[in-house]
């Protein structure tokens, strides 16, 4: 006890000085808006560095399961790619008029085979397909929560790599979140498991667009609302993004229908969606960049809303 007093007598002034300055700094960085923004950027950078160190240890132990997942994903992608190629390369179209026929590229002209008097089947070369317009920047989740009402994901790519606020974040299994804050090397994304998260979605094979939200209970399930009761739904149907925004690629996986009910007499189903992304084990992620987003935005902003 005496030692403590002795210590305080010796260093009391320094401790008090540091304490008072710390309190003053806390006041400055919490009350004033510009100071708060600067300090939040610094804190995000520091905690990002630390979390990345932690995650790098964790991901080393998870390598084998991650490997298996990647292999499986690779296999599925290959299969899908072959199917898509098959379905696209032979294309039926109306028999061209003479003028149109002259405008066709050579490769098409040679490869077209008449089926009947009105239709022609042709093999379309790969070069004629425009790029899909999306770029995927691989990154790693270095911090993630699932148990709060407002969950966030920290990933290790930032403004230096071209990440901007509002970009989408996807995992190989499905949609994961949306970027809300960016520092130089890290970005912070609102998880799907966040009560503020909002995403337009539809059920595969069905044109009606609804709304994905999360009610704050289990991290496995989200809710799809505003699907009209006239549409036909089965348990196990796939729920995909609608493509009405540039945040996520269209028809990207969100989850599957777990159950649905029409209890409310408002003409809409409330669908419980089993999310395909495993939020408890996020590791490899992709930041989605829409390459033509500036063009779309400038077009949409040309006329005032309302």
């Amino acid at each position, binding site marked *: 006890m005496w030692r403590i007093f002795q210590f305080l007598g010796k260093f*009391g*002034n320094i401790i*008090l*000085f540091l304490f*008072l*300055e710390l*309190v*003053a*700094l806390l*006041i*400055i960085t919490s*009350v*004033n808006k*510009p*100071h708060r923004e*600067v300090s939040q950027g610094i804190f995000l950078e520091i905690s990002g560095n630390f979390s990345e160190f932690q995650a790098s240890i964790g991901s080393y132990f998870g390598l084998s399961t991650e490997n298996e997942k990647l292999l499986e994903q690779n296999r599925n992608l290959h299969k899908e790619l072959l199917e898509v190629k098959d379905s696209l390369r032979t294309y039926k179209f109306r028999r061209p008029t003479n003028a149109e026929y002259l405008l066709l590229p050579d490769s098409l002209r040679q490869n077209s085979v008449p089926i009947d008097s009105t239709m022609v089947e042709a093999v379309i070369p790969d070069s004629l397909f425009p790029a899909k317009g999306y770029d995927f920047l691989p990154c790693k989740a270095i911090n993630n929560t699932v148990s709060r009402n407002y969950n966030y994901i920290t990933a290790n790519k930032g403004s230096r790599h071209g990440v901007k606020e509002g970009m989408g974040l996807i995992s190989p299994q499905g949609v994961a979140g949306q970027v809300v804050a960016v520092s130089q090397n890290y970005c912070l994304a609102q998880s799907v498991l966040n009560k503020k998260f909002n995403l337009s979605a539809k059920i595969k094979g069905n044109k009606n667009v609804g709304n994905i939200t999360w009610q704050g209970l289990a991290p496995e399930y989200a809710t799809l609302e505003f699907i009209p009761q006239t549409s036909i739904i089965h348990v196990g149907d796939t729920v995909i993004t609608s493509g009405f925004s540039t945040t996520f690629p269209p028809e990207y996986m969100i989850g599957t229908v777990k159950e649905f009910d029409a209890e409310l007499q408002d003409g809409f189903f409330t669908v419980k969606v089993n999310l395909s992304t495993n939020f408890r084990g996020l590791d490899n992620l992709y930041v989605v960049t829409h390459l033509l987003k500036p063009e779309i935005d400038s077009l949409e902003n040309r006329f005032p809303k309302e």
Partner: protein
Amino acid sequence: MNIYVKQIAIFFVYLLLQVFVFNQLTLFDVATPHIFLLFLLMLPVNVRLSFLMLIAFFAGLTVDLFSLNAFKGMHAAAAVLMMSARTTWVNVFTNRFSYHGAEEYLLQVQDAAWYSKYLFPLILLHHTAYYFLEAFSFENVGLIFLKIGTSTVYTFGICILLTLLFHQGNKR
């Protein structure tokens, strides 16, 4: 009169002057006189440093609260920094042995040259901390230094005037 009551009264006079008069006297949007520092700098030298730092913190915080257009908390941080340097700075060029009066009157019996030596560096220290905290970045360093320089000269001029008018006295 009780010394505490007297000092609190002095503080309120300085607070009112600072908030209602000198905060409005900003020149060219860069130079502002922070004359409430004189209250802190003229506190008796025989008070314990820990107590002085607490006084500086709360005095700075009060001025922060009542300065409507300024960011909050910066005077508190800067004033504590200035106060922690004060005692050492007084001891640097004051020969305590050649001074025979009561210690609490040490600050009231000096001449203008001594006051200049005493006030200017401490005011400069406060303003440096204050304006860097206000900017909170190192972009635009030129403007920050301009503000520090002009405000220091402005504050110092008014403070030395007030010192010679009101605080120097009680000569014995």
